[in-house]
């Protein structure tokens, strides 16, 4: 496929079924560097499957995904894993921090996995924790911090490698309004300032209002709301 001009990540005619259940039925997507795109839709509409396909976690049954000029389908598992580690960052609904590690070790983890020394990784981690206003929690373990704080630590971890795309799946789903909004402010500010694109899956309109553009997924089909009459 030819990706839309200037897009960093684009998908066309994505199809994915789990047994008899169709999750994606011709979905399309594109995002530019520095852009925040909200993916909305009812539960079970296929929005999380779309995110997993775009991030190279789940291969689609058919269709095309092009990242930075490269077809994901043309890569093997190891190449896709390497791409996820080097170019993508992830934030999930429940932080998914490693409970045995301290917060700073959690944030430094993606850099450590890429081979960065402990000292350098933790230094970079602290810089991000400062930006996310959680540097005072560096020595605490995830079980000792609040949900909102944990989610900011998770955002710092997603951004520490300088990803070009951040995938956020219901990043505020487990937070109250105030904490959720602060996480969204910090996530979108940090991503925009480093020109990272954000794919934001959410069912909350007030969270989607932090995006530049919205895609709605219904019954596995996507609709770009900018193109609605």
């Amino acid at each position, binding site marked *: 496929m030819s990706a839309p001009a200037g897009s960093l990540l684009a998908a066309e005619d994505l199809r994915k079924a789990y047994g008899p259940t169709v999750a994606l039925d011709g979905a399309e997507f594109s995002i530019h560097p520095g852009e925040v795109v909200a993916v909305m839709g*009812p539960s079970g509409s296929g929005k999380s499957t779309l995110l997993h396909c775009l991030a190279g976690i789940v291969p689609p049954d058919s269709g095309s995904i092009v990242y930075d000029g490269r077809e994901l389908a043309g890569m093997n598992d190891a190449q896709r894993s390497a791409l996820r580690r080097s170019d993508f960052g992830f934030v999930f609904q429940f932080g998914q921090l490693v409970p045995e590690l301290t917060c700073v070790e959690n944030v430094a983890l993606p850099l450590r996995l890429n081979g960065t020394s402990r000292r350098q990784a933790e230094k970079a981690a602290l810089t991000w924790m400062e930006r996310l206003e959680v540097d005072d929690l560096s020595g605490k373990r995830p079980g000792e911090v609040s949900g909102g704080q944990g989610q900011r630590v998770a955002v710092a971890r997603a951004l520490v490698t300088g990803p070009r795309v951040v995938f956020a799946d219901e990043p505020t789903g487990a937070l109250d309004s105030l904490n959720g909004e602060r996480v969204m*402010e910090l996530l979108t500010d940090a991503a925009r300032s480093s020109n990272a694109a954000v794919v934001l899956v959410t069912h*909350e*309109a*007030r969270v*989607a*209002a*932090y*995006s*530049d553009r*919205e895609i*709605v997924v*219904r019954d596995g089909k996507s*609709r770009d*709301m*900018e193109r*609605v*009459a």
Partner: protein
Amino acid sequence: MSIGHTLLGLLESGPRHGYDLKRAFDEKFGQDRPLHYGQVYSTMSRLLKHGLVEVDGIEAGGGPERKRYAITDAGITDVERWLATPEKPEEYLQSTLYTKVVLALLTHRNAADILDAQRAEHLRSMRILTDRKRKGDLADQLICDHALFHLEADLRWLELTAARLDKLRAEVTR
């Protein structure tokens, strides 16, 4: 919003001229809709007539005379009663959106497109408010939040209606 009660409430902290009242109102409550001078003076003369304010002094200057208003005891009681009375929740039972959807179904137009267009418009407004909230002070944040929560409620209705369109079509075209 009751402009009369709001101006009375502003007078509780001390007497003010009409111009000062307008400025205080605009600063605290009139971000989107500042008061006209005419509104201030017509409201003050009504409050004066009902004994809720009194003229505390008149300054004669080069221009028109400037009255300074003070709240009366009756005025204070009136503000207190207004503050303690809950507002009637607005239910919007006969909303334009509902009418548009039903009319679209009755005339075999694409109701889903109408809902989506409205949804896109709502989210555009929510983006503008979110941006204003991020850049504003606490007062701005609270005002924008109020509007955002209402728009969000509309949006949830739009989503729910979109999910029930087939059922609604069957009912209205029966």
